[in-house]
């Protein structure tokens, strides 16, 4: 952990310049290839909208969803609670069910909470990027500015959301939840939490690489108790939940959870 802090302070360029990445990537071993500088591209899209239903039985229709991201870093260390088995993440563009199954399959962790061992910095992509999570599809995922990295195994990622994102916050979710003839309009504006660390990646990059981050909208909204919103009369309009209420906490927790973000190689 102490080593990775050094890399973070130096920045990737500094780490390469000083040769520090050699130790992190295993170069110097007899048959290990030397790490190479690579270009790293990151695309972002939204998943989990189809058939979205809350745990309370509300059918959720999202009419606006945006995420503002400042930086994504990849690290050599395996994600906390990531499987030690070969990746079970679906290849290609996954269905919502596949994403959920993969997210639920993680089975091991360092035996110490709070001790995520991110290891050496492997890649860094920086540049404020606002993603329309509804407009993005397999072919239209929003791409961040090209970043750089080194070849080798990228085990985990961290995401920094926009800390100065304006009135829409780092995350905006707007829409309607319906159950038994009751409609609830919702509008969540969530400010950026601390850096979201320990997102599973498990990707081997031999050269220039492209990753895609699937943001799980079902994970963000699925546990919201829409009964906890103040009563609304038709026509319902997007309404913010009371601060500190269950809906507010549910989305606030979900944006912090690494399981909300699923990273894989862009096919």
């Amino acid at each position, binding site marked *: 952990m102490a080593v990775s802090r050094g890399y973070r302070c130096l920045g990737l360029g500094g780490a390469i310049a000083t040769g520090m990445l050699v130790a992190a990537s295993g170069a110097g071993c007899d048959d290990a290839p030397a790490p190479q500088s690579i270009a790293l591209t990151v695309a972002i899209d939204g998943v989990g909208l189809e058939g979205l239903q809350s745990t309370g039985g509300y059918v959720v229709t999202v009419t606006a969803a945006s995420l503002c991201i400042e930086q994504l870093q990849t690290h050599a260390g395996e*994600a*906390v*609670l*990531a499987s*030690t088995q070969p990746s079970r993440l679906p290849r290609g563009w996954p269905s919502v069910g596949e994403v959920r199954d993969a*997210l*639920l399959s*993680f*089975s*091991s*962790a*360092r*035996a*110490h*909470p*709070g*001790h*995520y061992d991110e290891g050496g910095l492997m890649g860094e992509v920086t540049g404020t990027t606002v993603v329309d999570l509804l407009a993005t599809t397999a072919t239209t995922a929003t791409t961040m500015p090209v970043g750089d990295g080194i070849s080798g195994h990228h085990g985990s990622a961290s995401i920094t959301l926009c800390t100065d994102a304006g009135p829409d916050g780092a995350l905006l979710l707007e829409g309607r939840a319906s159950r038994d003839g009751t409609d609830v309009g919702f509008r969540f504006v969530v400010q950026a*939490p*601390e850096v979201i*660390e*320990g*997102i*599973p990646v498990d990707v081997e990059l031999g050269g220039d690489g492209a990753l895609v981050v699937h943001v799980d909208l079902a*994970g963000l909204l699925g*546990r*919201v*108790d829409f009964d906890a919103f103040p009563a609304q009369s038709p026509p319902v309009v997007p309404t913010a939940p009371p601060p*500190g209420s*269950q809906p*507010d*906490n*549910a989305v*606030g*927790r979900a944006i*912090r*959870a*690494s*399981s909300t973000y699923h990273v894989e190689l862009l096919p």
Partner: protein
Amino acid sequence: MFRPRSLALVAAVATTAATGCGGGDLAITTFGEDFIETAIPSEFFADGGSVAFSKFLVTFSEMTVNGADGKVGGEVAGPVVFDLHEAGPAEVATLTGLEARRYEDISVAVGPATDATLGGNAASDDVEFMKAQGFSVFVEGSVSQNDVDKTFAWGFSTNTRYVDCELEDGSLGVVVPPGGAGEWQLTIHGDHLFYDDLASEDAVLRLSAIMAADSNDDDVIDIGELNAVDLTSLPADQYGVGGASDVLSLGDFVGALSRTLVHHTGEGECTAEKR
């Protein structure tokens, strides 16, 4: 060879260690430190309060000692129950006549007690209780906060294998010195049950949500009450689950923390594999 601490344990042990010139021994012990034996004082909790355990039972099994090159050191099969609240360190077993060297690959399981489970330093009644309940971990004690005292008795049937154990300095496994004895201490960190995050480096010990879980206000916090606390009812910056999306309640959360108790000889860490 294996030198058991009781005759009863003999049958549970696989003796695979080699005897040779320049061999040494490896003592396997377990220790609950002051936090389990005495108390976790208030200065360690972000929101105040304290915890005192009166019982801390752990079912160990499958303690293996091997080299990274495949060299087999030895194994203690168990299962065997220890009460970490008793003064320790307690001797679990000693592997004797091992080749003197580093054994990089050591592992231990903490899983549900079975009919074959034996007693370590735990009372026979406690061993029978663990077998009957199928518990891997059972903790009992009291929590105090803001002049309110409550008790708890929580059992877990989680099954976890701790692998890739390294010492605090990062070195893997244990060293058996020639003509001497190395030590592998299964150090149990009881404070982990009160951490408020499964992933964040900023995790702190916290009691308020656990105290508030006593919904019937009988001053006994039971597992059912912990299970009834949906994590979404708690502040968004507490009880983060990282990638563990199946952890939904405070009971799930404490259960997940029960998979993080075992450390290697003090502050050394292992990787905990859920199984």
